[in-house]
């Protein structure tokens, strides 16, 4: 999937490749990993101390590295979240009150509090992104389907599981169409109408083909007795004693960090 796999866009096929490998994180209970995600989100949202946020970010990075996942890919994949955060916050480095760091009189002034605000938002966002990617790269497809089956109501679970299945089919369809267009000089087309028209046609081919495929799959599933129920029989590992202990300790750390963050810069 070379044409769709840009450095900054995570490819689900690559992610699933890592999820099917063995490893310490891959063997952990998916429930523990999911509750860990909840804790990461809460911690990244409620903690205000820069040092504690830095610690949270480093922790997320260490967890990612402990899964032996590629660090270079993570850097590429972080580009989008960084872009989102900077889009929202970059202008505040000029407008936040604080001590001037760089000032061009009459033009702009960058303050320490403005820079600190952007840094904090980056640490918050990226800590959760790192953990999210670790979670999905260490959880097998069957475990994800098991979680979806137990968490989502009907028909959300069915549509989620079908989506997860179809993503790869659609990826392949668009991949083929893009490569075919590029081989005929499509990658050289620029401008809103020219490139827009070409990509619209590629997407349209994807839409038509995918919907045809969906219809065929629907009929095939009905012929095999599918009536709208898609159950997962994956036995999800319950949290081990160590898993529970880690969760309890993590909750305590988040609570203590929140309560005593006033004394940490």
């Amino acid at each position, binding site marked *: 999937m070379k044409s769709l796999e840009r450095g900054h866009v*995570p490819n689900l096929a690559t992610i699933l490749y890592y999820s099917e490998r063995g490893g310490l994180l891959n063997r952990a209970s998916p429930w523990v990993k999911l509750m860990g995600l909840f804790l990461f989100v809460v911690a990244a949202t409620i903690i205000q101390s820069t040092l504690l946020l830095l610690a949270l970010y480093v922790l997320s990075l260490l967890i990612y590295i402990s899964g032996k996942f590629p660090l270079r890919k993570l850097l590429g994949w972080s580009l989008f979240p960084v872009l989102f955060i900077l889009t929202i916050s970059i202008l505040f480095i000029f407008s936040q009150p604080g001590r001037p760091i760089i000032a061009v009189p009459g033009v702009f002034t960058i303050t320490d509090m403005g820079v600190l605000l952007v840094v904090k938002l980056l640490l918050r966002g990226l800590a959760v992104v790192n953990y999210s990617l670790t979670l999905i790269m260490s959880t097998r497809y069957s475990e994800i389907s098991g979680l979806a089956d137990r968490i989502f109501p009907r028909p959300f679970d069915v*549509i989620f599981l079908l*989506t997860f299945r179809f993503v790869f089919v659609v990826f392949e369809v668009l991949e083929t169409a893009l490569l075919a267009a590029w081989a005929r000089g499509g990658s050289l087309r620029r401008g809103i109408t020219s490139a827009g028209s070409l*990509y619209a046609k590629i*997407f349209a081919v994807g839409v038509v083909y995918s919907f045809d495929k*969906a219809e065929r799959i*629907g009929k095939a*599933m009905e012929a095999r007795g599918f009536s709208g129920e898609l159950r997962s029989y994956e036995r999800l590992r319950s949290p081990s004693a160590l898993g529970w202990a880690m969760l309890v300790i993590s909750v305590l750390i988040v609570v203590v960090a929140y309560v005593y963050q006033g004394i940490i810069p």
Partner: protein
Amino acid sequence: MAHIHLPDGVLPITWVAFYWLISLALLGIVAFYFRRTGKSIEVKTLSVAGVATALAFVIFQVEVPVLGGLHLNFTPMLGILVGPIIGSVSAVIINILSSAVGHGGWGPIGLNFLINMVEIVVAFSIFVFLFRRRRVLPFIAALVATLIALTVSNALMVGAITVSGIQGVEGVEELQNLLLLALINEVAAVVESIVTGFLVAFLAKVKPELLGGSKIEES
């Protein structure tokens, strides 16, 4: 992007919880609707919903080489293709998958979902009105529907962030900065509207039955 996916840590925890509650209430209504009509949901509808959601997720990954590279949301197109009810299920699944790969946070899924829902409902309603009732050309109908949907969602995003506030921001200059962000998003919205217009015009020629929402919306 025509709108950004808010990352974790931007909104205060109270607002994160507030948007989640509204979204869960909306999804609860949809789940109740499905439960009530559960037996009549066709297998075909389920597979179409799965494909439409996968399409929206995958198309978001493709970089369109316009203005230095844009990624489309495809949510207005999703509204045009499957309508608001299936669209709401698709929107929440897209947000979950996007958050899993780092495109948007888990906490702001509530707000991101509401913004997506506005895009889906507005695009669907305007497209159906223009294309089915007024017999406007599909390209124009889709372009107008997408542009209005993305403009409304853009305004909603700016409004929601202004009301909620950004963690750590002091002062009232927030709105001015967000308006600049909205302006940039609006340029991307124009590109997405043109691409959607071409896409719908193509579909109207080769597969017109796909346009105007699923059978669930019509019943």
